[in-house]
């Protein structure tokens, strides 16, 4: 900013001659991806502490309630695994998909995106930072649901560490989807509606045992990214999990995550420039 000098400050009501624009002024540096992502992540996390903790309780109790209900219907075996893993991943769907879709829908409708759009921040940093923060909120709820479910249905907990991969990967896929829905929905109410629908789909298609679903619905189940997180977690409950299949499921989650986060970043760009 050496080009801007004190003598240019008019104290006489602005009658100073205009400074010539011979040299374009140097541009201030933009924010780089990782530091900006970190800043957004941290800010979103602190927002959540204020505003989202009650919703986390709701998400967790909803899942636990479903498991208690299903206990009367399901009697162990693969169905019990499906119910516990479906309920655990449902917490991720509730927060990452539903709440994030609502957040971005509200931000876009209220003009809040302008704040980010007038800062030199890479779009991916805003989307990934928010998605990562929302996925992080789900960790305690998912863990708690999985532990309670395992106890409820007498499933082994030795392989629950697989949640370390399931939560971030399913979180990425669902948060990307949620962010894209929120940013693309033409109206805020539609964003909310789509988020709710996505979560309902995750609930029905994830919690209900797959082999009881009609064929058409089971195709829909295959399309839902959370399904692969559910499957990976369900497989890990068996005494000798087939780690290859678990890895394949998680690979699908990761691939969908990359695609959906890229779509969300594109949607963000589209929403900020008019």
């Amino acid at each position, binding site marked *: 900013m050496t080009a*801007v*000098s004190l003598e240019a400050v008019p104290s006489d009501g602005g009658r100073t001659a205009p400074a010539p624009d011979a040299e*374009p002024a140097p541009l*201030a540096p933009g924010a780089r991806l990782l530091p900006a992502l970190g800043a957004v992540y941290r800010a979103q996390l602190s927002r959540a502490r204020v505003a989202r903790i009650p919703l986390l309780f709701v998400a967790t109790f909803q899942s636990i309630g479903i498991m208690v209900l299903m206990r009367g219907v399901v009697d162990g075996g693969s169905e019990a695994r499906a119910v516990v893993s479906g309920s655990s991943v449902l917490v991720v769907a509730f927060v990452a998909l539903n709440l994030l879709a609502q957040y971005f829908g509200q931000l876009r409708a209220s*003009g*809040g995106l302008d*704040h980010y759009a007038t800062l030199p921040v890479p779009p991916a940093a805003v989307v990934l930072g928010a998605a990562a923060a929302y996925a992080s909120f789900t960790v305690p709820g998912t863990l708690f649901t999985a532990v309670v479910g395992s106890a409820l249905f007498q499933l082994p907990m030795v392989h629950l560490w697989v949640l370390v991969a399931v939560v971030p990967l399913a979180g990425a896929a669902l948060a990307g989807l949620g962010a894209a829905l929120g940013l693309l929905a033409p109206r805020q109410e539609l964003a909310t509606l789509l988020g709710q629908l996505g979560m309902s789909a995750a609930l029905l298609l994830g919690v209900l045992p797959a082999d009881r679903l009609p064929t058409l619905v089971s195709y829909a189940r295959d399309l839902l990214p959370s399904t692969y997180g559910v499957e990976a977690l369900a497989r890990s409950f068996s005494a000798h999990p087939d780690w290859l299949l678990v890895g394949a499921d998680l690979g699908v989650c990761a691939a969908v995550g990359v695609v959906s986060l890229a779509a969300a970043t594109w949607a963000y760009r589209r929403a900020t420039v008019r």
Partner: protein
Amino acid sequence: MCTVRGLVKTYPAARARRGVPAAPAVRASDGIDLTVRRGELFGLLGPNGAGKTTLVRQLTGLLRPDQGSVRLLGHDLVRHPERAARLVGYLGQESTALDELTVALAAETTGRLRGLDTRTARAERDAVLDELGLAELAGRPLKKLSGGQRRLACLAAALVGERPMLVLDEPTTGMDPVARRAVWAAIDRRRAERGTTVLLVTHNVIEAETVLDRVAVLERGKVIACDTPAGLKALVADEVRVELVWRTDPPLDVPEVAALHEHARAQGRRWRMRLAPEQARAAIAAVTGGPAFAALDDFTLATPSLEDVYLALGGHAEGTEGLVKA
């Protein structure tokens, strides 16, 4: 340094939806030419809907103009709107992106997203919060603050991370006098120390008269005048503003009052008019001396304000309050 030429932006017509009537297309910027000089405190003045916010959104890269050019510090912002973020600190009207953050985190995060490293962002955050008298509120979330305090916190976020130009959309709305003074002091300091250029949107005439170097008056997407506040007021300097307030109905049977009625813009029992000084003297003599005095509740004589300039230029703001929203 900031040159706008032939700027046109039209919002498309909206179809009627349930509960929302159809709206015709609006030409919110209708061939705007402006030059803001380096280091200037330049104001955009106009009633609601005059196109002030649309104009600044095009200057900050948020809105693509349909036609025209915007050059800022040698950069073409129509071709490279993304450069605006690296040249301009912007305070918009909305705070929803920051509402759930604490004042300190809002300022720090904004600084980080302006490309500062953590240590610099924190140092600047502390300096700005002290400067604006927000240090005590640093730990409170924005949405728990009053409107004026929240506005001040958003301004703090806009000031972290130095920029050669600040675009502030109604920065002092809802603020008490102490906060206002802090805002103007902070802006003056940046202009004196760094030669920062400031573009300000306002519809507060009194503020515009006292702080601005130059002001452009906007009306329906057009610049209808652009000069120093004193220069603009010189347009109506040979006139005096007279306001009369009647107790009940104006005594139109008095001939002098009936004659005044032709010049007056009446709002309820209040009449406002601009008159030549000798006419004003005669009018005051007539209403304070004769039978009209019994019907008179109050009167004022004043030199014209920017409000009068706006009206003299043919401003069409709804309601006689026009620009002022103190």
